[in-house]
């Protein structure tokens, strides 16, 4: 725990990316593979399932310190981070202890994970014992792991850069190997850094290439004929893999969507083996996309009934091909990949279709087409450079999303409170935040833009995920992501975030996004006029 805590502090203590990469590089070089495998797990945003209810952690802290509960809550409200609050409060009753040399993997595998099966009493004794034995910084990191809220403010891109320096491998190779499931085992860590191609995990998707928002006029991109334009679909970005006789569907949030979309899996069963498609999962009827909230009925649902499949039919709309004949095609030019895609699935039909390019021949025609995006059930236009390879992550230059106003942000729910009148028994007023480093700062309050069924479901979720209560307001576990639409944005000194949002409203519940994928304050500020 000592070495991992030192890494955490080093990452926390430098604002420079070069310093962060150097700290991770040093850690990966020194740490045993069993520890490094877990470090990769946590640094890439994976988390342990909640092991101990935070109410228990609070109760034990009160017991250890003898302070009144209100004082703990006042302190937490001031600190804003429960793991840190408890670690600091526990600083007092214990003597400054020795450093802890127990390796990270022993902590996770032999101590923390077994908590789940323990009786409360045994769990209490274990955790209180650890708190007493650890110095404050390590107690803090332990609390982060216990609360499942481990975030250290490094992007996966930086983790990949550090691993590339350790292994001498290309960042693209490492980014690919880190996709999908990550088994935190020494063997997996060694395979990750192995110069030789391993027997690849056949369920592993490719890193997604993400478009950047187009801020300027598209004429700045040069000649219209250098670009392929498509609608920007309003669904779930996904990869469809067909390998070894099996079919895998991954969302951009790296959730394996197995069993959720049987009609897509059935359609994919006819595809040749060794094939990976990039596209959008959409609710779709005849030749038209259905609103996102129709798709939402399907997202959380494993093995949907025939009835729900009829009511909310989904398709995979493919727009790129990343692998064919078992070979990685990402370096081939976009047109070649699109051609291959057409060869493989034709125009598609049923639950597997192919996205068409828009033919508007010049920027002006394209701009007026974009104005009809909403009627087409889309969010705007995607611009993809001819001849471009399929890159990794948010690399600017080749893919642009030219969205329609109003602008939207993906934000995490922080607080909820009951509504008025008819809805006073339900939580319908929410506060949302975006990431500023590794903390969430509130950016908007919005009343529900959800339908009744969603409100009911969210209300139940809020009640079972309340962190604390301030009168009628509850803070909730920062886990649910919502897309907020707004009319305008202005700088503001009154708001902690430094921005004020005009008429924010929920446009949808993004259950497909993990909290770490919500927007950052910098993303929001970039939209300031």
């Amino acid at each position, binding site marked *: 725990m000592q070495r991992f805590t030192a890494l955490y502090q080093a990452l*926390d*203590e*430098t*604002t*420079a990316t070069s310093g962060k990469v150097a700290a991770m590089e040093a850690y990966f070089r020194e740490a045993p593979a069993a520890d490094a495998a877990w470090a990769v797990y946590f640094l890439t945003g994976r988390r342990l399932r909640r092991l101990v209810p935070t109410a228990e952690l609070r109760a034990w802290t009160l017991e250890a*310190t003898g*302070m*009144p509960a*209100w*004082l703990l809550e*006042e*302190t937490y409200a*001031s*600190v*804003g*981070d429960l793991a*840190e*609050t408890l670690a*600091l*409060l526990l*600083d*007092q009753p214990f003597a400054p202890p020795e450093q802890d040399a127990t390796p990270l993997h022993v902590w996770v595998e032999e101590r923390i994970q077994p908590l789940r099966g323990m009786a409360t009493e045994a769990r209490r004794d274990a955790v209180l014992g650890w708190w007493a034995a650890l110095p404050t910084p390590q107690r803090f990191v332990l609390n982060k792991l216990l609360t499942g809220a481990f975030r250290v*403010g490094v992007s996966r891109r930086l983790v990949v850069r550090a691993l590339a320096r350790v292994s001498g491998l290309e960042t693209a190779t490492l980014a690919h190997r880190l996709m999908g499931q990550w088994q935190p085992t020494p063997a997996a860590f060694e395979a990750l850094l192995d110069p030789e191609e391993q027997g690849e995990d056949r369920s592993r998707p490719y890193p997604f290439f993400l478009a950047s928002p187009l801020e300027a006029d598209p004429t700045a991109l040069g000649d219209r004929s250098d670009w392929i334009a498509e609608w920007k679909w309003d669904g779930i970005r996904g990869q469809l893999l067909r390998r070894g006789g099996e079919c895998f569907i991954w969302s951009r949030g790296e959730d394996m969507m197995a069993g959720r979309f049987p009609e897509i899996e059935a359609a994919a069963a006819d595809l040749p083996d060794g094939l990976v498609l990039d596209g959008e999962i959409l609710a779709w009827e005849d030749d038209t996309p259905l609103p996102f909230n129709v798709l939402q009925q399907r997202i959380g649902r494993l093995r949907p009934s025939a009835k729900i499949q009829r009511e909310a039919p989904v398709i995979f709309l493919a727009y790129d091909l990343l692998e064919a004949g078992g070979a990685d095609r990402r370096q081939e030019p976009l047109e070649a990949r699109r051609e291959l895609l057409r060869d493989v699935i034709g125009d598609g039909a049923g639950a597997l279709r192919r996205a068409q390019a828009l033919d508007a021949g010049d920027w002006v025609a394209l701009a007026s087409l974009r104005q009809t995006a909403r009627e087409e059930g889309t969010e705007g236009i995607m611009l993809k450079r001819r001849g471009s390879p399929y890159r990794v992550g948010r690399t600017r230059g080749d893919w642009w999303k030219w969205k329609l106003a109003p602008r939207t942000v993906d934000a995490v729910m922080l607080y909820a409170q009951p509504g008025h009148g008819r809805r006073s028994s339900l939580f319908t007023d929410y506060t949302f935040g975006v990431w*500023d*480093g*590794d*903390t969430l700062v509130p950016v908007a309050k919005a009343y529900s833009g959800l339908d009744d069924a969603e409100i009911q479901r969210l209300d139940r979720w809020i009640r079972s995920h309340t962190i604390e209560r301030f009168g009628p307001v509850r803070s909730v576990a920062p886990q649910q992501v919502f897309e907020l639409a707004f009319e305008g944005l202005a700088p503001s000194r009154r708001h902690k975030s430094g921005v004020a949002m005009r008429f924010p409203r929920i446009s949808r519940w993004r259950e497909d996004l993990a909290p770490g994928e919500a927007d950052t304050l910098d993303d929001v500020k970039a939209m300031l006029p």
Partner: protein
Amino acid sequence: MVADLIRPTERGLYCPPGDFYIDPWRPVERAVITHAHGDHARWGHRIYYASHASRPLLERRLSRDALILGCDFDKPFRLGDAWISFHPAGHILGSSQVRVEYRGCVWVASGDYKRDVDPTCEPFQVVPCDTFITEATFALPIYRWEPVARVAGEIHQWWRACARAGQTAVLFCYALGKAQRILAELLAYTRDTAYLHGAMVPLVDAYRDAGVAMLPTASVSAMPRNHDFAGALVLAPPSAAGSSWMRRFRPESTGFASGWMRIRGNRRRRGYDRGFVVSDHADWPALLQTVRDTGARRVLATHGRTDVLVRYLNEVEGVDAQPLVTDYGGEADD
């Protein structure tokens, strides 16, 4: 029951029998000043009463024609119908608590104070009283200070690490009190010269004149335009962060010395590389201990988390406590 000896008015905390104000925020005839920080020692009063050690600091802050009367510690004198005396508060050079006695009733206004060892000022003196006016800047149980000598060791290590990396270590801290305390504590580790932002130079000089031993210092502005600061420690007030003045120190690592640095989020929001927990205010245990030590039956709390301290004193310590609204608390960076 005797009426309150010190009460809030729109000009400041007023003592009717003595006809004077303590740290008033609007111009008054007679101002008793606890210490030279800007939110306590304001411009425009006719007569200032302050400790001897505060005088040079006040003279720098106030206009030339201000009449400043230096007072001894622990020597009561009469003001109006009240007796008052100054007692060390341990906050910065010259900082004082003000004891007021009238008809057998004793009130103490602490100003800002701390209980920790500080080589730059006289240590806090416990003054028994009936009513104690305390600050509450850091009145939350997470605020607990480590010995400053140890934190100075961390600062020194960071400075050395910056030197090895060819960086300038720029440490932001409050210009009056904090900077001098750090310069004094660093003597345990080095005799290297530290560089000062212009705003700090006269204050460091005043401390030297008062006989406080500190690292040798030089003014940043006295150095040639192209001077290489790599490996140097530079002290600057927080207002200098992000200014063009900072450019000359590239590449730099930034630190901030403040009690607020106890919380990671405070450091991260401000974008400092390092936070060092050093405060010239009482931490949570010291606030409670001091209330107990004074034996006060009644406590009035000013600036900071008065709500928390007042509730805790009432509910847990069984002391009659109330908030006292003042205009203090300008040391947001402390």
